[in-house]
């Protein structure tokens, strides 16, 4: 695994700067993503972590402007892919990126696959759209083999409903890889799968990343997955990042009270002492509090926190935290 220091001088596949994605056309838009900045270095796995409503999926979809607009509004910021800003691209330029340089896999592969077309056809469609000069059927079989689908010659003619959840997800991954993307965005790719199947898919993604040298943006609420697979982690809350850094550092020595709270709230296999949750509930993006978004639930809150929102500040190395009173 490359050291964190080495990665900061590596080239970035994607750079997100001050991304804002709002919803609604009225005077009070829902600010689902409100000033998010991070980069995804080449050949690395970056995790975007948070609970429901924090804006992580919206961030992922915003990279290639996948959200229907209206009601989504890209209200600010830049997303640089290979140096070009997707926020300024024309639809045809975006088509050149979507499913090509940046590919996606989502949580429920069963819903994402078209039920009336065979999987070979659907993977073939991705191959055709990639524009690569290959023989489609051969390439489909190669991809199916690459993602570990058993008996590709037989499965190529299966319909999605004839496959298990794990196999459907492998089909999605095969489709995503058809264009040899530089970035694979995986939005909760294993949440709907049984845990032993989840393990298989994670191994696959890890192996593919090494073999193909692509970057992975992993969107998840599962800190266990992050611990194992991500080089860097960004913790999201109320539409903004509240902590960023190398995975090991952030998870072993969290600086933001929310990260600390999350870690304390995750049941462990090896620990049975009483866990402390976080009081209250995740904020509704339509009704975010003034000041620090976490203030209403923070055990360390002070008056200052309810006034102006803290900025993201750099601490040691590449650690960043958005808090007036970070933990040590």
């Amino acid at each position: 695994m490359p050291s964190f220091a080495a990665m900061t001088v590596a080239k970035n596949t994607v750079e997100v700067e001050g991304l804002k994605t709002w919803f609604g056309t009225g005077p009070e838009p829902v600010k689902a993503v409100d000033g998010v900045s991070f980069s995804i270095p080449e050949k690395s796995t970056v995790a975007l972590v948070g609970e429901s409503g924090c804006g992580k999926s919206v961030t992922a979809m915003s990279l290639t402007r996948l959200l229907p607009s209206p009601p989504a509004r890209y209200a600010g910021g830049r997303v640089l892919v290979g140096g070009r800003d997707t926020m300024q691209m024309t639809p045809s330029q975006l088509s050149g990126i979507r499913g090509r340089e940046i590919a996606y896999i989502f949580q429920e592969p069963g819903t994402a696959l078209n039920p009336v077309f065979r999987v070979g056809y659907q993977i073939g469609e991705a191959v055709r759209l990639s524009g690569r000069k290959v023989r489609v059927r051969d390439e489909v079989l190669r991809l199916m083999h690459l993602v570990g689908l058993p008996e590709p010659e037989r499965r190529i003619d299966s319909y999605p409903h004839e496959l298990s959840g794990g196999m459907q997800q492998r089909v999605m991954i095969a489709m995503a890889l058809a264009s040899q993307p530089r970035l694979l965005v995986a939005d909760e790719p294993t949440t709907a799968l049984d845990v032993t199947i989840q393990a298989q898919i994670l191994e696959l993604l890890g192996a593919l990343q090494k073999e193909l040298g692509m970057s992975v943006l992993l969107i998840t609420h599962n800190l266990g997955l992050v611990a194992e697979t991500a080089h860097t982690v960004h913790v999201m809350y109320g539409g903004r990042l509240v902590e960023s850094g190398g995975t090991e550092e952030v998870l072993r020595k969290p600086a933001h009270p929310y990260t600390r709270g999350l870690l304390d709230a995750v049941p462990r296999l090896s620990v049975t002492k009483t866990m402390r949750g976080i009081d209250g509930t995740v904020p509704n993006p339509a009704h975010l509090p003034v000041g620090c978004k976490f203030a209403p639930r923070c055990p360390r809150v002070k008056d200052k926190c309810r006034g102006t929102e803290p900025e993201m500040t750099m601490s040691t190395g590449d650690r960043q935290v958005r808090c007036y009173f970070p933990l040590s």
Partner: protein
Amino acid sequence: MVQEQPLLDIRNLHVTFKLGRRELRAVDGVSLQLFRGESLGLVGESGCGKTTLGNAIVRMAPVSGGSISFGGRDIAAFRGDELRGYRRQVQMVFQDPYGSLNPRMTVGAAILEVLGIYRLGGDRAARFNRLGELMTAVGLEPGYSRRYPHEFSGGQRQRIGIARALAVSPSLVIADEPVSALDVSVQVQILNLLKDLQAKFSLSYLFVAHDLSVVRYMCQRVLVMYLGRVMESGPVDAVYSHPGHPYTEALLSAVPDVELGLDARKTGGRRRILLTGDVPSATRVIPGCRFHPRCPRAKDVCRKIEPTTVAVGDGHWSACHFASEVLARPAAQAHGA
């Protein structure tokens, strides 16, 4: 050890669903005992039969063989008042906080309805008091009883579901994946609530879950199910740190865990036991041990003869021909105290 009569005693239970010409053997010979005051965990992946087992206990699934006894009496024989009495004793908390509450009733009305059905709590005023007590017991403002389900968050709705289950003062609560639909930070609140309520109201829990870490937190004993049968059972500490069944080993190694994940970064990743293939359909009849097609330790005998359950420790049982080998030579690092 005092030989106490179990609160719930299930013997060789079979629950079979007919699908046209085929049969789905959802529960295929399960025995378990749950004692007063304990939390028993039931873990397994999809299709293992754990939810159907829970449903069978509340008489919501067709039992085709075996028996379920509660307080020493066979529940299949219950009728009329006896059945009503049983339903008061055993309640369920469901997984989906959105689907399990009637959207057209205020939450107060939903809970009062339960009190009404069982004619509990005395007159209207007394019932209203009880409603207030229940809401408070689960950490909700009594005034919220006038609200509709959609006005609450997932975690709050789960609290309401728990209040509703407690309205009849049950002795056994079957919690079927009560926190899997909730955010991480809310899960702990509900788990801790369940623990507090258990102490306060002397409840016994059958905790059905796929999340092994949650079961570790909540339960003293655990049963691991696969395709309708119990593969392993025992004290949670023993099963997790010294599993006696290859399936349990694989499950444990598959669970994402922050500590283990971070530790494994130094050694290039967790040594996982990866099972080949997918969980087969419960309509297929697999000869021998039903786990053998995916088992990394399968030998000839496994393909032919179904294993009997053997003891591998104090109150620790495994249905594997090679249980002692699994114990003696574990495939992966142990997870445990």
